[in-house]
């Protein structure tokens, strides 16, 4: 039914199957929308946040998706600025996934503010010394960059590309993509870092506070670094997941392995830096404020914030994936690669979790005790909402846009009789190939 829109030479599932899939995801989306409406109309009392947990699930989700979406800027950086040409086969998808991540982040930020209609104050009345201001500016601007990077892909849809203007626009945008990628890398460096700065500058919160250079606490650099290391892992993970779902290979192994290798070395560097930072914080920064290292990990209800969390974050989800990804054998083994990217993703999410929630959970006044929190269903639903939205965007893009340049080569396909090209599309067959290669 929609075969005229599907890129030529590739096979897609039947329309009914696709509609069913989108319908199922839309169900989840709807659940999120209900929660969203509740939150917008009734206010933040719909959440389980309180005066001790001003930041909670949402801010964590923001930090996490932005870290995972870091695959877009770092892959773009490697492809356009460092010149790793093979990555052109995965950069589209990295951009697409990044785009969804950033849309999610902005959506969640929109839920999270008490007076959504005043959201623009963060730009208008900007306090340039606040890390959150920097986050808001760079995040919005970078979403603009991602949109610019995503547009040419949309324009390459078989039907849209027939319009000469769009055809040329896509081509021109590809031509100067390096400029946008550089701007994106610049913006990403700052907002990823500023997100790290958010807990890092809280000098009255000993669990989050870090010393640093000039106005930037060490967490500034650690966050950027971990996003550059783990973002590509997420890109690999989503690519592999897509391959599993659609049941075919979409990106050649050498491309994945290259990205995995770079990611592995970044992760190794990051984990070393993170360990140094943790040791310095535990032995110098925190004690100077009257806290012993173990104060942060003991005496809390149910040991939710036990020392296990640090071991899990740095050891299991940091050192292990790094060790796997830097070895040739690790990258070549399917299971090891899966394990490594999964651990890296969990590790970075865990890091963002402690840097938001544990910061607030730790009692600072000596006569207070640990604070506990569990999100309400409205918070959970609104956090899943953008994930569902992202799934739909990715599904539509995969079906109708030439996202994977290697797909045709990896999956030779003879169109069935009813799918034979109409004469007019044949004319454009060559024209279509060009932008995809650009």
């Amino acid at each position, binding site marked *: 039914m929609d075969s005229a829109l599907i890129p030529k030479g590739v096979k897609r599932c039947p329309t009914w199957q696709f509609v069913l899939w989108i319908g199922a995801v839309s169900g989840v989306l709807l659940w999120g929308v209900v929660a969203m409406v509740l939150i917008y109309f009734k206010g933040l009392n719909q959440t389980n946040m309180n005066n001790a947990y001003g930041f909670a699930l949402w801010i964590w989700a923001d930090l996490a998706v932005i870290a995972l979406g870091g695959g877009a800027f770092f892959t773009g950086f490697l492809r356009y600025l460092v010149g790793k040409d093979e990555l052109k086969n995965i950069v589209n998808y990295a951009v697409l996934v990044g785009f969804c991540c950033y849309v999610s982040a902005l959506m969640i930020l929109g839920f999270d503010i008490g007076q959504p209609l005043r959201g623009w104050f963060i*730009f*208008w*009345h*900007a*306090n*340039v*010394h606040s890390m959150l*201001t*920097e986050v808001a*500016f*760079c995040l919005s*601007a970078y979403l*603009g*960059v991602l949109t*610019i990077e995503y547009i040419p892909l949309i324009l390459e849809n078989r039907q849209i590309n027939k319009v*000469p*203007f*769009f*055809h*040329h*626009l896509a*081509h*021109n*945008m590809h031509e*100067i993509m390096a*400029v*946008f990628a550089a*701007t994106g890398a*610049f*913006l990403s460096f*700052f907002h990823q870092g500023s997100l790290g700065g958010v807990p890092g500058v809280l000098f009255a919160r000993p669990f989050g506070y870090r010393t640093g250079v000039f106005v930037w606490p060490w967490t500034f650099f650690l966050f950027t670094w971990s996003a550059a290391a783990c973002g590509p892992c997420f890109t690999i993970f989503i690519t592999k997941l897509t391959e599993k779902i659609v049941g075919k290979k979409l990106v050649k192994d050498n491309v994945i392995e290259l990205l995995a290798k770079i990611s592995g070395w970044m992760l190794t560097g990051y984990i070393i830096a993170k360990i140094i930072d943790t040791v310095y914080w535990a032995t110098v920064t925190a004690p100077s404020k009257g806290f012993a290292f173990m104060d942060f990990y003991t005496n809390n209800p149910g040991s939710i914030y036990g020392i296990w969390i640090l071991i899990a974050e740095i050891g299991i989800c940091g050192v292990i994936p790094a060790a796997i990804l830097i070895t040739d054998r690790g990258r070549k083994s399917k299971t090891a690669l899966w394990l490594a990217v999964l651990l890296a993703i969990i590790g970075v999410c865990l890091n963002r979790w402690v840097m938001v929630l544990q910061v607030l959970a730790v009692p600072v006044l000596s006569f207070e005790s640990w604070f506990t929190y569990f999100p309400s269903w409205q918070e959970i639903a609104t956090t899943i909402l953008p994930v569902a939205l992202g799934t739909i965007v990715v599904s539509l893009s995969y079906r109708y846009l030439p996202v994977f340049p290697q797909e045709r080569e990896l999956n030779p396909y003879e169109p069935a009789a009813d799918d034979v090209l109409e004469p007019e599309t044949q004319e454009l067959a060559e024209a279509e190939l060009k932008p995809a290669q650009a």
Partner: protein
Amino acid sequence: MFPFSFEWIWDAGHMVFMGGLWYALTIMGLGVTYCIIKAAVDASGENDGNHH
């Protein structure tokens, strides 16, 4: 955000921060404008070609 918002001060913080922001936005804006204009020119050139 703009020099005419009343809390604006011409200090290093504002100049570096807002300078960086406007710089990035300008590049993005100019880049997209360039692409659009060039695409329009290319497309009209192609149309002319078809007509002749």
